[in-house]
């Protein structure tokens, strides 16, 4: 399979999957933006109306955090099951196994384009104006995508070898949401060392913080850390894809017998 065929196949599989999903529901494609909006709405009611959080511009703060977090959490959760749900196909064709998690990544990323546009509209209508700083979004999005591909492939292989990992990944995403500052501000942590450690070692916390710096606070994100995170994600992704290619037949045997 050539690279061109591979990407064309991923693209077709992702589009057809989105089409099938939209046909399942009455509101169809509208759910792409409706679901994330509902999440933001519920969090807003709980943390702003009921608990009275004092984070400034809380609605936009929350929208940036939650909408960018969903891209990561949804993709990795779905990708975790991508090999096991395609066991029928994997058992009868010798296909590259990375095809399945990568299709999920592309599918969720197409959906994220709509979410991202929604976020722009929200931010601009709320009075924030675009600036040169917004060019930082390109490297931020690329690094997040690399990280998503890496984590999605690892999740898919783990679940293929032992289904229990599927539950752990689901739980892990909830834990990650709590420790990544989706609905609270890392700058509110009194202990500076703890806040620094969180931004250094939790890539999602760092990315969400950086998106807010660029979109809401007019600050330049930590480019050096972003570069390191990008390089790490790239190498980790390439190594994982190579291993999946090398041990694809072992993965197939495991998927089919599970």
């Amino acid at each position, binding site marked *: *399979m050539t690279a*061109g*065929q591979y990407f*064309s*196949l991923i693209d*077709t*599989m992702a589009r*057809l*999957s989105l*089409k*099938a*999903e939209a*046909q*399942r529901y009455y509101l169809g494609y509208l759910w792409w933006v409706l679901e994330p909006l509902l999440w933001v709405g519920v969090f807003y009611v709980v943390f702003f109306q009921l608990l009275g959080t004092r984070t400034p511009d809380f609605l936009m703060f929350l929208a940036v955090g939650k909408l960018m977090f969903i891209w990561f959490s949804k993709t990795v959760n779905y990708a975790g099951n991508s090999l096991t749900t*395609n066991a*029928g*196909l*994997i*058992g*009868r*064709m*010798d*296909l590259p196994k990375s095809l399945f998690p990568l299709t999920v990544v592309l599918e969720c990323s197409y959906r994220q384009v709509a979410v991202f546009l929604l976020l722009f509209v929200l931010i601009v209508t709320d009075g924030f104006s675009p600036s040169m700083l917004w060019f930082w979004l390109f490297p931020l999005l690329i690094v997040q995508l690399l990280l998503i591909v890496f984590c999605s492939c690892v999740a898919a292989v783990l679940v293929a*070898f*032992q*289904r229990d990992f599927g539950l752990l990944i689901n739980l892990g995403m909830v834990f990650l949401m709590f420790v990544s500052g989706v609905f609270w501000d890392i700058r509110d942590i009194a202990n500076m060392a703890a806040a620094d450690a969180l931004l250094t070692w939790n890539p999602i916390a760092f990315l969400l913080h950086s998106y807010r710096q660029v979109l809401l606070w007019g600050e330049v994100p930590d480019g050096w850390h972003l570069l390191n995170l990008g390089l790490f994600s790239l190498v980790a992704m390439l190594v994982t894809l190579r291993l999946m290619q090398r041990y694809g*037949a*072992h993965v*197939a*045997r*495991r998927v*089919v*017998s*599970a």
Partner: protein
Amino acid sequence: MSAVIRLEGVTMSFGLSGANSGEHQVLNNLDLEIRQGERIGLVGRNGAGKSTLLRVIGGIFPPATGKVWRHPDKTVALLSLGLGFKGDLSGRDNALLAAMLQGMSRREARKRLEAIGEFTELGDFYDQPVKTYSSGMRSRLGFATGLLLDTDILLLDEILAVGDHLFRQKARLALKELLSPDKTVILVHHIEQAIKETCHRALWLEGGKIRQDGAVPDVLAVYAAET
């Protein structure tokens, strides 16, 4: 004719996952040589290891022990029915996907869609979701998308057990036309007539080993007498 596939001491077992961990042995120290142009019928009871043997030959699974050698210049493909369709998508979309998964470009695949639709005799159902299909309709779609392949070694897993009597005849004819003399075929089928029509060598697989290997009438006679 030269050998295209050689299996030496192949053992295959599946590890069971979840709470029922352990190993289930499917192929047991199996030797086999297949030459170019041979048409082999594979018979045996359910669970004898027929489908697993096809998958080991096709390179989908590695053997647990032993060696599998395939001629490096020959392409191999496994066709089986029923699995791999996406129920929410139409027959047409599934056919597009199946053609692309078999290595066609999107443009090539699109060109074939009408011909596939015609062969399946699905009519308006071709544009309906596959989940609304009867099992016969699914099988017809599976057969028609499988026929697209142009490979040197074809592994066919119950692919002729399709739809009603008339469609089965049509399917066998289509397969005959597709098979030039230099193509190698291994056919798993529970209807002996299909094996008699298509194959000249038969293998009887039992307990993960080859119980008998020889001309089709001889092997089928012993198999029928003992099962």
